[in-house]
């Protein structure tokens, strides 16, 4: 980075919040996905004005700017793929206000999502979006990636809970979108445009979130199925019986075996699928619903259905799900975590496709996911040092994307497009669809300053490259 530019940045940001040493910059070269890109400078802004000034400078000198929260992204969202400046927003975390009267939370972007959960619950309220990284991830990162976790089916996704934003635009303007009211039709809905924009259209400097009353009770069950397709029927039958569970998690046989091998919990390794169902709401309704779920699972062919009698048993059930991550990393050091999502009715078909892909490419592929909303997480466990296998992984990942789109689904349910899935955007959106998205980007960011290299493929880029 040129001395002159550094000097100008120093006019905006105090020296102790500018990280220039090689080791400091390497510490911001990665996220939880794949790839490593060294930024030229890391800046830790504290105010929207500082961010605005930096964006103006970036437009003057044409250097890229990459916003970053806690870097838990699985799609490369914060990776500084073209160098430039990383804006570390994880330290902009002062404001966390719970407005009980209006059922709102007003937060700084660096606030940890899990802290919003805790504060809201202290006030008897509830913020449903709960990605598995919520104890670590910043709310800013959550909103920009629109990641939601297991409760999407009943409570909707993150975007349903964001009603107002303060945003620094790519050209350095400070704007407010939406507000504190649930109803708001004044002009275009820029809030929804920014949420899920993967940090390419603006930097969130404050967010207004909707909260709802906290459900009074919850019940959890675990059911095992000898046939995967039967678990699919159970899921559909529960929903058509008028029950909307808070979570419906699915684990396939490879997952079950990996967990059981890693940490024996007594899971049936012959079963093709295990599902975990949690219902919440009024205590009386919850009791009745869990009973119905239990019956439906048994009728659909479950060999065992276990309802947790207390919190301890609930924790045991969820432990099986939480053990998936550590268990599968025992199979290899590199984990490619996908989130192809299909309409619920297509889950059995998608599961079948994934098995075919697994066999065709001879890979360690395990599937778990949020079955209620069709959001599957096929994970390929491999070793990036093995070039030959990585080639097969690339082909398999490509086929996973193609299958999801063919079945009427989408490339990504919640991880985002980032860098890995960019080449497949046109397949899902078509040429015209892509063009209109690009036009939005160009209108907001004429110099392509903010998070360049994401979402949109490079010219001629048509497939995943992992090597």
């Amino acid at each position, binding site marked *: *980075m040129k001395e002159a530019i550094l000097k100008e940045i120093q006019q905006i940001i105090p020296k102790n919040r500018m990280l220039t040493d*090689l*080791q400091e910059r390497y*510490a911001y070269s990665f996220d939880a996905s794949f790839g490593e890109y060294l930024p030229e400078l890391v800046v830790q802004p504290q105010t929207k004005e500082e961010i605005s000034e930096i964006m103006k400078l970036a437009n003057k000198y044409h250097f890229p700017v990459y916003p970053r929260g806690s*870097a838990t992204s699985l799609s490369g969202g914060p990776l500084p793929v073209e*160098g430039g400046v990383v804006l570390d927003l994880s330290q902009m975390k002062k404001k966390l206000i719970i407005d009980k009267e209006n059922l709102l939370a007003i937060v700084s972007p660096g606030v940890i999502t899990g802290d919003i959960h805790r504060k809201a619950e202290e006030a008897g309220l509830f913020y449903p979006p709960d990605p598995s990284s919520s104890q*670590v991830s910043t709310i800013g990162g959550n909103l920009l990636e629109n990641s939601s976790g297991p409760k999407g089916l009943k409570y909707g996704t993150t975007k349903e809970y964001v009603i107002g934003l303060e945003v620094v635009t790519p050209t350095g303007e400070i704007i407010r979108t939406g507000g504190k009211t649930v109803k708001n039709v004044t002009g275009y809905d820029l809030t929804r445009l920014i949420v899920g924009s993967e940090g390419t259209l603006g930097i969130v400097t404050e967010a207004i979130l909707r909260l709802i009353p906290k459900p009074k009770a919850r019940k959890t069950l675990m059911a095992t199925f000898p046939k995967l397709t039967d678990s699919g029927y159970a899921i559909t039958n529960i929903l058509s019986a008028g029950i909307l569970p808070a979570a419906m998690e699915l684990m396939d046989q490879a997952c079950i075996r990996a967990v059981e091998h890693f940490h024996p919990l007594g899971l049936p390794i012959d079963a093709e699928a295990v599902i975990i169902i949690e219902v919440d709401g009024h205590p009386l309704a919850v009791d009745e619903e869990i009973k119905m779920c239990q019956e439906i699972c048994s009728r659909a062919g479950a060999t065992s259905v276990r309802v947790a009698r207390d919190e301890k048993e609930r924790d045991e059930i969820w432990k099986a799900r939480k053990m998936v991550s550590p268990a599968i990393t025992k199979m290899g050091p590199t984990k490619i975590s996908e989130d192809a999502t299909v309409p619920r009715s297509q889950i059995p078909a998608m599961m079948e496709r994934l098995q075919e892909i697994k066999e065709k490419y001879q890979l360690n592929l395990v599937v778990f996911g949020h079955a209620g909303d069709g959001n599957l997480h096929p994970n390929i466990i491999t070793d990036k040092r093995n070039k030959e296998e990585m080639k097969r992984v690339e082909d398999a990942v490509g086929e996973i994307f193609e299958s999801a789109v063919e079945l009427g689904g989408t490339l990504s349910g919640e991880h985002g497009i980032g860098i890995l899935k960019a080449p497949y955007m046109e397949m899902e959106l078509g040429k015209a669809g892509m063009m209109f998205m690009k036009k939005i980007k160009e209108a907001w960011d004429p110099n392509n300053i903010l998070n360049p290299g994401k979402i949109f493929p490079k010219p001629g880029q048509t497939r995943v490259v992992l090597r």
Partner: protein
Amino acid sequence: MGTSHRETRQLSTSNSLYEMVYDEVNRCIQCGYCLPACPTYESMEKESASPRGRINLVKMAAEGKIDVTEHMKEPIDQCLGCRACEVACPVNLDYGHILESAREAIREEHKKRNRGISFKEFFFSQLFPHSRRLRAAGNLVWAYQKSSLNKIMRKTKRINRILEPMVQMEKALPLVDAPVKRVKPGSVIPAKGETKARVAFFTGCISDAVLHRTNRLTVELLSLVGCEVIIPERQNCCGALHAHQGLKKNARDLAKKNIAAFEHTGADYYVNNAGGCGAMMIEYDKLLKDDPEWNDRAQHFSSKMKDISILLTKFGPLPFQKKWEGVITYQDSCHLRNVQGIHEEPRILLKSIPGATYVELSGSDRCCASGGIYNLLQFDESMKILDQKMGNVKETKAATIVTTNPGCLLQMRLGIERCGQSHVMQGVHLVDVLAEACGVG
């Protein structure tokens, strides 16, 4: 600004680092679950001060992308080694091993480049691991406290400037027993009443030197609950300070000597009262896993080694004599909690004291930033963390703050001094509190 972001530099590759830990650091999935658990990430507010950041830097150094001493050393030096990240890690990464290997690589690199270590590091590395030197130093501390020299020293500004950390620590030192009162190596103390078990007591080098009273009381409590206590001769430092400084070879030598000394006793259990030493010793099996001659013996040793709180709970109840007055709170020893997995027993024991009001300290599971000798090497960072913790301690309104490791104990006493609470608050070892409640002095 240029477009080439990859910098080309000639960096020294530490192949030993690659061999020691590359497979392990490569297992990190960079999920960041360790971030909220890390005290230095919280206080220093940057990724290089987090476990994920440090693991990545070790990986970068192993790949030769950054230099071991120029780039990796500082972030590694700033790690407390509290290992809270290991508890948070979903893939069970062995951070302790990564950290120690990084320190070993730094040390090797220093040697290769003929660069000396800093005076501070030299001083502490020469003093702590040697029980005879420490015992002599302990005697000096006793003599010093008995004389009026300490009052003069505390007033001497020059000393304050040069060795502020040492002077602050000096204020925190507990009163040391006279040399004649100490438990003698080689002695056997019979159980009071029925003998339920024979236990061999590990005295520890720092404890033996400056927290000698706690050692004596440990033996008395064990005897009270029906343990015959043997003090094995020829035991020495557990090797934790060596291992933490990257001197693995010395640590292995010390481990072997301890194993031999304790095997000799034929005791049912081995017992210690220092969370840090205990953590080191229950990992002797890991330390010696590649040594076929010692592997089995190390495993046997590690499985027998117990923290004092475990044996007192197992063989208790303690014969309490007195009613306790005032609020008690407890600060976990990181190595007791995170490495040995012990957090219930000390609390159970404290709550069992008649009349005691136990108040849980918010953030008691987070490191006090003593970190072995971290508070001496990284004084300012350590004090930042400590002062924040003392804010939480004050909220408990405790008159007694209890710990289970000498380093933590000194640090908490320092914290009490620093926040001006020494007239209403005392920092003591778990054993001291239990002994007092049992009427043993």
